[in-house]
């Protein structure tokens, strides 16, 4: 089955990203295709490379990056949600004159059309978050 994944909550405060990660990993292990993972609302915080959790805890961001590297996942951060919440890639850094950029490997910033497209193209869109 072709699946779209939507993550609506940030890491650590809420389990949504953990659940989405485990679901995605399990779906891939079962041979399903992940069309795209779309991060919205505070979910965009799952894509900041500046995340530095304690060493004895899971690294939610790095875990997504590694899964993307292994399986060629398309991890998309909503641009409007990202701009509100301080997620900046190199292009956005230049455009807005920011002091740095923080989009983690494997993630990219794009528009909400990518979410709608996932809803259209995937057999199921699975949403994580309240």
């Amino acid at each position: 089955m072709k699946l779209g994944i939507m993550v609506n909550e940030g890491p650590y405060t809420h389990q949504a990203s953990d659940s989405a990660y485990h679901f995605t990993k399990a779906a891939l292990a079962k041979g399903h295709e992940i069309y795209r993972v779309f991060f919205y609302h505070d979910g965009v915080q799952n894509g900041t490379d500046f995340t530095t959790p304690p060493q004895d805890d899971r690294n939610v961001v790095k875990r997504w990056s590694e899964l993307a590297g292994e399986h060629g996942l398309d991890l998309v951060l909503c641009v409007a949600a990202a701009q509100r919440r301080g997620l900046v890639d190199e292009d956005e850094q230049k455009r807005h004159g920011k002091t740095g950029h923080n989009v983690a490997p494997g993630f990219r910033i794009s528009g909400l059309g990518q979410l709608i497209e996932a809803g259209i193209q995937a057999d199921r869109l699975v949403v994580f978050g309240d």
Partner: protein
Amino acid sequence: MSEAGATKKFLYINRKAPYGTIYAWESLEVVLIGAAFEQDVSLLFMDDGVYQLVKEMQTKGIGMKNFTATYAALGDYEVNKIYIDKDALTERGLTLDDLQHLVWEDENEDWAEKDSIHLVGRDEIADLLDEQDVIFNF
């Protein structure tokens, strides 16, 4: 399991008050962008989400942009199936008169103005959910 290019039924469920959290506003942003994809779109307002459509809201006191006037433009985006949980309205002491009057123009009937809002019971909501391909819950 639709073929490429086929139309899907999209339902946006709005369950939270318009301010206090960003969900109502960011839901509307998805609806507006999604309208360009020409899918079969419905909106459902339930729980505290019914407050999103209350008319004549004033947000100056909380220092936030009043985005709720944008709902009136939904008809122009061909988003004209707006369902409201009538029990959720009643439970909050609201009636249809407290809400914005949302309309759309039917090009098949000489642009006749029609109501977009439909009050529905909870049994009808179950049927509405059942017939969707994609559900967003905000």
